[in-house]
């Protein structure tokens, strides 16, 4: 599946060593089974089974109590896909996917390229940049809820910077709240992207840049034609993680806006918890969960096709 590309990406330094044969006598299979079984059992019962159950629940009108009796076929799906609030939620997820790729990605790469050189306090800079990623989304979200209210510290900072007039209510205006959410998400996850890119840059041999520099290439030409292509695998891993994260987004939205105002920041996951848990429409919430899953799956598979194609051309570049 698409994950194989990821593992090869992160295994660049590991290199493909063929697995050993385990078929020496009868103890091989027993040993293998004993080692795999615990993980497999936990994984099947607590990951695969619930996902399968969600698919079953989604076909019923069920409040989570009593027997599954009122089979209604695909009605829950029809209802979700004709609810403008849910369709808008899908739109918000997809917008965050696109915005992250278009804004966070290039920004992170640019900052990483600039920081990828011997600097005083380099370790400290890296550590501090990574801090938001380590904080829980709850803590980060609460911090911003306290920073962003009308006439709060952020507004007074803006006033100090010269914006004297009225400021928008960052979290309470439907036209603004989504962008506020995106900026907060960028604050939370840009550091992770930068650190990931810096880690990837360590795998790019310095000699290539030095050689090109001696041949008269400018800094920008070196980055554009040597470093960036070699950073390809890292960028693709980051993009995959970013896409999946954006599609499953829940915590930050739930804390920051609760999906409001007027559903303007709902995501598929907040919509699902709202119905499936808060309103006890377990069947309907499960249908939403399945839709969320199918969308993630389709996007991941599409992504894999693009990635595979790029990986082939990347291999050619690397061969020269």
């Amino acid at each position, binding site marked *: *599946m698409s*994950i*194989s590309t990821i593992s090869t990406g*992160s295994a660049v*330094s*590991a290199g493909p*060593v063929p*697995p050993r*044969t385990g078929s020496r006598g009868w103890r*091989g299979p027993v*040993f293998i089974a004993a080692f*795999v079984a615990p*993980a497999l059992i936990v*994984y099947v*019962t*607590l*990951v*695969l*089974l*619930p*996902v399968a*159950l*969600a698919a079953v*629940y989604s076909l019923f009108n069920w409040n*989570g109590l009593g027997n599954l009796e009122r089979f209604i076929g695909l009605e829950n799906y029809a209802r979700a896909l004709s609810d403008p609030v849910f369709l808008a939620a899908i739109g918000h997820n997809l917008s965050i996917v696109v915005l992250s790729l278009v804004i966070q990605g290039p920004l992170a790469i640019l900052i990483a390229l*600039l*920081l990828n*050189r*011997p600097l005083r306090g380099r370790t400290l800079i890296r550590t*501090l*940049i*990574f801090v938001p990623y*380590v*904080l*829980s*989304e709850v*803590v980060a979200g609460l911090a911003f809820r*306290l920073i962003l209210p009308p006439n709060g*510290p952020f*507004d*007074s900072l803006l006033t*100090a910077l010269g914006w004297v007039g009225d400021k928008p209510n960052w979290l309470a205006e439907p036209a603004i709240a989504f962008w506020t959410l995106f900026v907060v998400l960028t*604050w939370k996850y840009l550091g992770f992207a930068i*650190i*990931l890119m810096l*880690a*990837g840059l360590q795998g790019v041999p310095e000699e290539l840049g030095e050689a090109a520099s001696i041949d008269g290439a400018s*800094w920008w030409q070196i980055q554009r034609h040597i470093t960036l292509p070699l950073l390809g695998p890292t960028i693709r891993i980051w993009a995959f993680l970013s896409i*999946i994260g954006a*599609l*499953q987004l829940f*915590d930050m939205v739930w804390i920051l806006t609760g999906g409001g105002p007027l559903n303007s920041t709902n995501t598929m996951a907040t919509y699902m*918890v709202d119905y499936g*848990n808060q309103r006890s429409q377990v069947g309907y*919430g*499960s249908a939403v*969960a*399945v839709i969320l*899953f199918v969308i*993630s799956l389709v996007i991941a598979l599409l992504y894999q096709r693009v990635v595979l194609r790029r990986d082939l051309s990347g291999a050619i570049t690397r061969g020269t």
Partner: protein
Amino acid sequence: MSGTTIRRNGFRWSQPFVYGVALVVVAVTMAPVFYVVLNGFRTTAQINEDPSGLPDPWVFDKYLSVFQNPNFWTQVTNSTIVAGITTFGVVLLGVMAAFVIARYEFWGRTVLYSLFAAGLLFPLTVAVIPLFTMLRTFGLLGNLSAVIAPQIAFALPTTIIILVPFLRAIPAELEDAAMIDGASRFGFFWRVLLPLSWPGLVTVGVLSFVASWNAYLLPLLLLGNPATATLPVGVQYFSTAYSQDTAGVLAFTSVAMIPALVFFTLAQRRIVGGLTGAVKG
């Protein structure tokens, strides 16, 4: 040292510019954190009067009252238990499965790997409603194991995907040598492979600890009483219940940041090193 830098990067004026960029990025990153920590040392009246001022005078009451709050300590204990057992479980089950997948050829090996890898596409959000009904059936709602077991299960895919290439990189000659010296497969796993893969284990351990410590959705839905759930749920509950007490919420929030920050500072080389997937001691 700066001489080689300048030669490699081509132009001299770039250095101040780079420091400028670094400074801006760090400032934007850290400003919210500093705001929260500093304003925990003020009173709500001071904050309302001047939202962006510094503590004057410094007030320690809010922080003290967080530490005197019995719910806070229950939450910290719960978070520690949940994250600790989750980490142990993930690393143990993960390394066992990854070891076999990485180093043995057997029927269904590729399928098994793909099955675990596909787990990356099964978001916790999809499973959370069925998990809720399943765990309610077993009467486990409100029990810490209701959070621990699913967290282990959902952390396995990432763990196995990180560990498989890591374990595969350990040279086959070592295994042959161990076998010639009379070690069993388990002996090789226990005495050679585990010590050699320690850096990788620490990396996945740190990642799953931080993920578990910060988790919100599962504890929120499965642990019931928010006042005594885990730290993230508790902080959120406190901020809603005492929303008028801005300084108190800020103090609680900043105390809730501390464990993750301390843990990260101790383990940051592992986290960053783990991201490169490098096999370095």
